[in-house]
């Protein structure tokens, strides 16, 4: 910070941007605290309690949880397979043109958010968990493909070359020379993305792609707030469990 006036101008423009944002949205935050605003909010909040804990509903939530887990697991697995194949092209194993095209494809897949993919896949595959699975698979393919390709590019070439020099074919050289080197890294990237995808799969249902999100959306639309609250609590438990488990695993593995 050798030029303090520059920093001052910068901070000034940040403050201006913040004030402009509030003005642009013309948010009436006062209305939330004035008149019957708070009372209405309180009534709405109270209608969520107590959460519905009847046995049939809990069983349904249990299925929703399983469905969410299944969507994330199958979606991630499909992405691992597709990502591994595309990463071979993106790492330049099959020529420069294939490399450029594969990178373009991966960037496109990755830059469209999961929820947008889900809304598109609901059109392509109909309502239900399959659309969510495809949405997760498409976005995650973009993410994993790039990470896999980077791992491939950084892996040593000597083992595969040694195998090829002693007469192995290209496929065998890849499977026994290159793959064992990158596999641990690929695996840890995949597990990390799976963790993210569990959280994502819980909310993809908002556009009709199955799992807990769809249950929450439907119950809120039907004004069944106490049922909605139990779904929210289930989501909260899922997120906390995933967070705790991954933190524990990381500590164990580190």
């Amino acid at each position: 910070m050798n030029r303090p006036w520059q920093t001052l101008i910068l901070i000034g423009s940040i403050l201006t941007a913040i004030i402009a944002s509030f003005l642009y949205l013309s948010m009436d935050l006062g209305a939330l605290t004035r008149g019957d605003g708070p009372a209405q909010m309180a009534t709405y909040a109270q209608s969520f309690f107590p959460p519905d804990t009847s046995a049939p509903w809990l069983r349904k939530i249990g299925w929703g949880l399983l469905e969410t887990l299944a969507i994330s697991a199958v979606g991630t697995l499909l992405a691992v397979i597709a990502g591994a194949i595309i990463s071979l092209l993106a790492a330049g194993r099959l020529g420069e043109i294939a490399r450029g095209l594969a990178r373009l494809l991966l960037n496109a897949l990755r830059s469209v958010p999961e929820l947008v993919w889900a809304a598109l896949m609901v059109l392509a595959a109909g309502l239900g968990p399959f659309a969510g699975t495809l949405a997760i698979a498409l976005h995650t393919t973009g993410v994993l493909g790039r990470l896999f390709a980077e791992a491939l590019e950084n892996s040593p070439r000597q083992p595969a070359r040694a195998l090829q020099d002693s007469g192995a074919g290209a496929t065998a050289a890849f499977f026994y020379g290159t793959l064992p080197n990158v596999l641990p890294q690929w695996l840890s990237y995949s597990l990390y993305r799976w963790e993210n995808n569990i959280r994502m799969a819980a909310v993809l249902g908002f556009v009709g792609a199955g799992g807990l999100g769809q249950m929450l959306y439907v119950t809120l639309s039907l004004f069944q707030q106490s049922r909605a609250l139990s779904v929210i609590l289930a989501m909260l438990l899922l997120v906390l469990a995933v967070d705790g488990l991954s933190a524990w695993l990381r500590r164990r593995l580190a």
Partner: protein
Amino acid sequence: MPVGLPPRNRWRDPAALPRLLMTVAALIILWPGLVLTEFNPATLIDPDNASVMGRFLAGFWPPDLSPRFLALLATATLETLAMATAGLTLALLLAVPMSLLATRSLSVSSLLTGQPARWSSVARYPVRLVMILLRSIPEIVWALLFVRAVGLGPTAGVLAIAITYSGMLGKVYAEIYESVDQAPARALLQSGSSRLAAFFYGILPGAAQELTSYTLYRWECAIRASVIMGFVGAGGLGQMIDLSIRMFAGGEVVTILASFLLLVLLADQLSSVLRRRLA
């Protein structure tokens, strides 16, 4: 060529059996998952779905570039940007006090023993618990709830970002305070200064850089999040994408996605410039 091996063993793969078993086991474990997700690629080429999707995809080109639509798009993009900025500002207002309450580095009782006294540790737990609850419910769930409580529009999105991000920022801020050199703050506290003064003169100078860069990173995340939240009716670009998809207006979807990418890219550049200048 391998020499001297008996011909029977020449192509034997020592790892084949374990790999085969692993694959079979994985498939058996995954089978219920495939059933639960109603995994059926045939639906993709089902004539009904395929014709819908085909018409939709055919509409993707050319992108909609009519001036009227571009004006709408610009408004929505600005709205998304404003949602992220306003939401993050409100989150900061909540996060800073919570992080000051939750951090161990301003503990007076730890001056003697190095560990905070048991009761004051217990007093910090409620704040930490509140922050965990705030950040563990995904922002889009908050948005969905707020849309029903305060109505459609960006206000719901701003509140959702404010709530989730206050939990995230508060937790990380408290950790950053604890990660910087504690000696200045301790010296100040020991010589009788107030905790707030100890924070401003003992901790903030060391932590400011990291705090700024984390906040900017969260601002980028907030932009992405506010795009997504439009899908539940919280305004901005997301709401436009949702509407265009429902109306099968492929050309509009392409234009909106392009402007979303541009927005993310610009935010990325802007925040890296700010990080260089401020941090």
